[in-house]
């Protein structure tokens, strides 16, 4: 971690009441992180136009979120927006890019291709079915491509994730707020299990496999 975080928690933690101090520090740091998401200049296909370019342009203006400082070097970027299809030739490079980014780093997968392979799922020998098979993804923004507002909604979600879910003591370890509005008496697991069964039998898709693959 950074110059300060290397030392700081170690000094503060033994102090009685240190947890209070730390959690308020967490709040400040997470506030800062969530409001200063510098994206990496990276886009593979159509989504790059909408998500990286049009949303940075005057009409939508990504700068309002403090995220217009696109860094061409992964070392300085916080946010990797996977804008477009990832193919098998690109996959190792994407992983490399992700690994080159400094912690804390966040990943948004935009568009159908980056979420699940999109139009290129079947009869295709080269397209990776979802960027989360390669690197962990924090927020999924559906659309083909999503409109800039949709991407902003994804950024808002990511900001929320950062503010709530991250602690300075466990860098990179994130808690995901899952879902609030579910039908009464039904759990998320039930729905997912049922759907997975249906889809896997019908469409030969492994839904759960890819979600866990990246986290190993």
């Amino acid at each position, binding site marked *: 971690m950074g110059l300060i975080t290397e030392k700081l928690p170690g000094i503060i933690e033994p102090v009685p009441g240190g947890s209070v101090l730390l959690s308020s520090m967490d709040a400040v740091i997470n506030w800062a992180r969530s409001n200063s998401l510098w994206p990496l200049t990276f886009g593979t296909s159509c989504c790059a136009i909408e998500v990286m370019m049009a949303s940075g342009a005057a009409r939508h203006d990504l700068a309002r979120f403090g995220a217009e400082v696109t860094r061409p070097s992964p070392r300085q970027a916080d946010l990797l927006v996977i804008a477009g299809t990832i193919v098998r*030739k690109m996959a190792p490079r994407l992983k490399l890019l992700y690994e080159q980014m400094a912690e804390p780093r966040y990943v948004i997968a935009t568009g159908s291709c980056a979420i699940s392979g999109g139009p290129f*799922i*079947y009869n*295709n*020998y080269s397209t990776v*079915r979802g960027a989360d098979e390669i690197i962990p993804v924090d927020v999924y923004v559906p659309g083909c491509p999503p409109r800039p507002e949709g991407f902003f909604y994804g950024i808002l979600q990511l900001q929320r994730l950062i503010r709530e879910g991250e602690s300075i003591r466990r860098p990179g370890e994130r808690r995901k707020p899952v879902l609030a509005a579910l039908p009464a008496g039904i759990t998320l697991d039930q729905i997912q299990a049922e759907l997975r069964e249906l889809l896997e039998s019908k*469409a*030969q898709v492994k839904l759960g496999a890819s979600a866990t693959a990246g986290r190993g």
Partner: protein
Amino acid sequence: MEANELISTVQSLEPAATLRDKVDRPAMSVPKESVPALMRRLRDEPALSFDMLCAHTAIDWHNENRIELVYQLYSTKHRHYLAVFVSLLRDMPVVTSVSDVWRIAEWQEREVYDMFGVLYRSHPDLRRILLDDDWKGFPLRKDYKDEFMLEAPK
């Protein structure tokens, strides 16, 4: 130049060339031995002057065990088209490169090699273009199978 005239001119250059039917453009089938020489003449003959290779690709006729190369030629001078078809054996698809006739052929042939496994003799730099160097198989062949590929559900 009208289509009939075009075809007869090409036939005068290469007697072995035959008309390829079911194509909505003037199209000739030529034997693979005549490829580089004929192509150069097609380019240099003033009445034809096919100076542009629009596209070069192949069709895998899996059942007939042959791969058919397609050269789509265009003349910016006379503004006419010609499609040249060359049949190759599917097991041993070897043909001579035309990259010294049209510059772009170098890369288009690399693509055809990458996708169909057609080997080009005297090609300056034959290697895969779109897929990784260590890719197994040639994906646009009809019998290409891959662990990665998924069949669409019916």
